[in-house]
């Protein structure tokens, strides 16, 4: 286990290193001189010279990368042109919304996707299964922003049950503010619940074909007990690991949904920074999301192995 964990952490580190090179290169390949990019186009020649020297842009590119990477490791992701503040603190401001939104979405995904996927698998081959699987495919084919706009139209504009946009922090307005996230999280949950539904169904059907399930049936256990004791747990191992990946992906998938609902999260920060040409923020967000994504993958992979008793063997 430990040797595997080390090896797996090693590959993650290498991937991260390679990804960091791409992310570093980003600021150099966007149109225009990085200095103008960093200072905006209102900079004076003095400022430009000062920054060029300060950033060491007169140095070889390798040194520039090492320099940048060193700053990143110290938690310095540069300064936002628009906010005139450290990028990390700008991202941190959006993190609350994004993390809460992703968490709420995953709750919907879990309570919609998993049980319905189980029902479809247990009723495999019946019209109910075909209907549920078809509905899941339909849900995966609907753009999240379209669902979002309809939710706003129906539940905010017509019925007035939920607010249509924005999100004041729970730390200021109390937990009641979570109602701002209900519609966006539902919109975001639709396609992801569909994916988890299909995965739950497929992995339960896979497990149901295993020899040990036949053994369990041979014992004379009732069908529902066979499902509960032998199929479900083994099938859910795969589903739980997909949960980790989905959560990580949600942090960036929420870009469009956050825009629709005007939520102050990381996704909307990216879009607005693109429109404002605030490149350091874009670079910082990409870096943070890739790091989070890789770390979650690593943790999910390792805990998956921890849950499986077979790994003791290795």
């Amino acid at each position, binding site marked *: 286990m430990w040797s595997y964990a080390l090896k797996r952490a090693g590959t993650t580190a*290498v*991937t*991260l290193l*390679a*990804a960091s090179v*791409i992310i570093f290169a*980003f600021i150099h*390949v*966007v*149109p225009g001189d990085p200095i103008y990019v960093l200072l905006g186009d209102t900079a004076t020649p003095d400022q430009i010279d000062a920054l060029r020297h300060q950033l060491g842009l007169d140095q070889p590119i390798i040194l520039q990368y090492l320099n940048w990477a060193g700053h990143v490791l110290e938690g310095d992701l540069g300064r936002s042109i628009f906010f005139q503040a450290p990028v990390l603190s700008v991202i941190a401001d959006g993190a609350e919304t994004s993390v809460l939104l992703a968490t709420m979405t995953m709750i919907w995904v879990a309570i919609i996707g998993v049980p319905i996927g189980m029902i479809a698998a247990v009723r495999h081959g019946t019209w109910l299964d075909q209907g549920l699987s*078809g509905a899941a*495919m*339909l849900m*995966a*084919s*609907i*753009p*999240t*922003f*379209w669902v979002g*706009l*309809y939710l*706003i*139209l129906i539940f905010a*504009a017509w019925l007035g049950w939920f607010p249509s946009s924005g999100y004041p922090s729970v730390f200021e307005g109390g937990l009641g503010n979570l109602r701002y996230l209900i519609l966006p999280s539902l919109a975001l949950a639709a396609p992801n619940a569909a*994916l988890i539904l*299909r*995965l739950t169904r*497929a992995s339960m059907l896979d497990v149901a074909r295993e020899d040990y399930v036949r053994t369990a049936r041979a014992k004379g256990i009732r069908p529902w007990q066979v499902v509960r004791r032998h199929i479900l747990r083994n099938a859910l191992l795969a589903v739980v690991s*997909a949960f980790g990946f989905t959560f*990580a*992906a949600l*942090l*960036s*998938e929420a*870009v*469009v949904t956050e*825009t*629709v609902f005007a939520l102050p999260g990381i996704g909307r920060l*990216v*879009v607005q920074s*693109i*429109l404002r040409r605030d*490149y350091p923020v*874009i670079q910082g*967000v*990409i870096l943070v*999301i*890739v790091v989070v*994504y*890789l770390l979650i993958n690593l943790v999910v992979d390792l805990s998956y192995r921890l849950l499986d008793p077979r790994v003791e063997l290795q």
Partner: protein
Amino acid sequence: MSRVGATLWLQPFMARPIALAGLGVLLVTVLAAAFAPWLAPFDPYAIDPMIRLTPPNAAHWFGTDQFGRDTLSRVIHSARMALLIGSGVVVFALATGVPIGVLSALFPRLGHLLMRMVDVLMAFPALLLALGLIVILGPSVANAILAIGVGYMTTTTRIVYGLTLRLRAETYVEASRSMGAGTVWLIGKHILPNLVSPLLVQASFVFAFAQLGAASLDFLGLGAPPEIPSWGNMLAESRTFITRAPWLLFFPGMMIVATAFSLNLVGDALRDRLDPRFRQVFGEKG
């Protein structure tokens, strides 16, 4: 494809009426795109301030937008952009993914390096990768294709790599190799023909998800220029008027859903026809 081959491919649709319906929707979309100028009742660009935001009526079946443009005509013309982006992304994904995947599988050393690079690209969430590329390249239709395509290049490469490894291990490939067949012969004779069916499945899924990706970019104002009619652009514009003109939201959105759903249905039907050995290469995602 021979006649026998064609019947084999039609078979999954015959057994499944809903997949056949999906095929029908796609056919209608293609026809709409091809004959848009003749099918559309009005000029999609013609502005008429007198009839701003009229609900659906006898003259304008799908109503009009905030400039008085006919929604039905714009919806029909948008089919062109949908097909252009979809096929562009598919072509890009296949044109890059197939060579990289096949060569990686045949030359393990090169393959190891290339697949590690694919892994690195896969560490970037697809939409974020697309947005980053749009920042670098600037918003345009061609760049939207490229930006979305890169995300599917990685999945296609993975799938082709997995399939080619399987094919390579098959005895007849080994046998033809031991008889001195060259790599080009091997690829042309044994690998590519076997990749056709699974790639058709992959193409339908990529086409479907490219629709959704393109709609998202359009919606964010980072895809096709706003003056070009596209379902995503129409939705982006309709946003401001959702309470006053809900029909502007309905029709373009329905078209996106209909095409993406149809493509998924077709891909699903084709996948079920695949050789079981190949089917597992398509994991939980498309």
